[in-house]
């Protein structure tokens, strides 16, 4: 498998086409947060919205446009974390970031388990310029959770 094929694994190409959680859910209430992120290298954008139910991510939806890596990453994220606890979300985010900075080498089993389909992004770590693409949705997620947690619905990030 070439580096390129390792980056664009089938599971990524599939997620890029069948995007989970795509289309923003209409949510209400104080425990809703939204974040808009732009990758300025290519103009890719993602808007991600979460709704919290106590310590649970009750809803994770997003919309956006961009490269297969950014779209697939947001899709995997939504699939993994919709319904997860905030703590799991946190750990998964950390593991995904670690994966990105691991230069193409898989993580330990524990974190691999946590990441599930997201382990397919391992090859991205060999392409520093693409790490931003893969992280775009995750950055939006962290920001959206922070906004939901303080109980203010931020519409944009300035």
């Amino acid at each position: 498998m070439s580096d390129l094929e390792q980056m664009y694994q089938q599971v990524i190409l599939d997620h890029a086409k069948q995007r989970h959680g795509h289309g923003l859910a209409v949510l209400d209430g104080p425990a809703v947060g939204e974040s808009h992120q732009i990758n300025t290298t290519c103009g890719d954008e993602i808007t991600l919205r979460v709704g919290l139910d106590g310590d649970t991510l009750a809803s994770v939806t997003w919309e956006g446009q961009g490269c297969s890596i950014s779209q697939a990453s947001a899709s995997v994220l939504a699939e993994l974390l919709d319904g997860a606890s905030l703590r799991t979300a946190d750990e998964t985010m950390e593991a995904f970031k670690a994966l990105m900075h691991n230069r193409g080498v898989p993580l330990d089993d524990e974190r691999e388990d946590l990441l599930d389909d997201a382990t397919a992004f391992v090859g991205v770590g060999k392409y520093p310029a693409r790490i931003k693409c893969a992280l775009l949705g995750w950055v939006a997620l962290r920001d959206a959770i922070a906004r939901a947690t303080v109980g203010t619905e931020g519409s944009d990030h300035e």
Partner: protein
Amino acid sequence: MTPTLTDVRREFPILGRTVRNGKPLTYLDSGATSQRPQRVLDAMAEFERAHNGAVARGAHLLAEEATEAFEGARASVARLVGAREDREIVWTENATAAINLVANGIGNASAGIGGAASARYRIGPGDSIVVTQTEHHANLVPWQQLAARTGAELRWIEVDELGRMRLEQLETKVDSSTKVLAFTHASNVTGIITDVAPLVKRAQQVGAFTVLDACQSVPHIPVDLGALGVDFAAFSSHKMLGPTGIGALWGRAELLDALPPSVFGGGAVMTVALEETTWHQAPTRFEAGSQPVVQAVGMGAAAEYLMEIGMANVAAHERRLAQILREGAAALPGVRLLGPVGEPTLNDVLGLAAVVVDGVHAHDVGQVLDDHGVAVRVGHHCNQPLHRHFGVPSSTRASAHIYTTEDEAALFVEVLGTVRKFFGVSS
């Protein structure tokens, strides 16, 4: 070309390197930044090794030698672009800084800085600044901001479906309120080379200053700024085989002498009291602080090299590459070329091709090319309004220079043809 392409390529050590999977480098990103020939690197190394000193400031031998090298470089660049006097060349950090120098100078003049001498530059509410829809951000945002700062109106000349300026709009968009007409000499997306004459003519009719973005023209085609009739022009060293860290503003001497500076400091000022200050003539008034001396030496060496090869030869070489890139890309199924294609316009286009692959994002297209060693640029190339006009967020651009071979151009087309299959996009 007088030297063979093999001779030329030997001058560029980086072209011999291998990249991903041991593939040879196919560098098709010269529109973003060019590579530098050994002789440019050597001229800078020699300066560092033996002549580095503060320019125009010391009484010692190194200072004299450094000053001579610095001003000699100015003369080389002046000759390349047809400046009437060397002092019409002002060193800047890059082309962006050069355009900002004009816009901020006009802004300062409008705020009263520079006194009576700069009154001709004052603009305000009721006045207009005109740009075009094919401008790089560097020749758009400074004018937007100047409009915001002064209350002048920003207008733009639109482009047609191929990205060509609609020159018929000159009559209506450029009128007696117009104080500045800023436009590109060659588009970094479509590659279209502007027919400057009608724009200058219209600007002169209404008494507007013309500002030419010559970033993509000076490195690739013969340019005689004095003859073009424009008032100011900006270009960058790093796109014309010179180092990063330097660019130039060209302007008519008497216009430069009346424009107030917008960066203030040592060297630019004649006398400084705590209360007030008097400026030098151009170019000194704009060259505040220690200058990019070794970069000037490199840019001068690059200008000499381009003149040695001959800009007409450079242009002819790149025209052949344009044909391979553009016709090749346009002929691929599911690939859209931004800008014109085909015989009638090939003389008016740079050696570049920006394409959109149906169903595949530019970043992914670029990645496949990169995997074959082909270095291209992906994104909006700092030209969002034009991409928006074409209805796409981004594109993939291959761009050539004197060292690009026809085989390299053909490889771009070949790999481009495999992209949709790789991503499983039905054709």
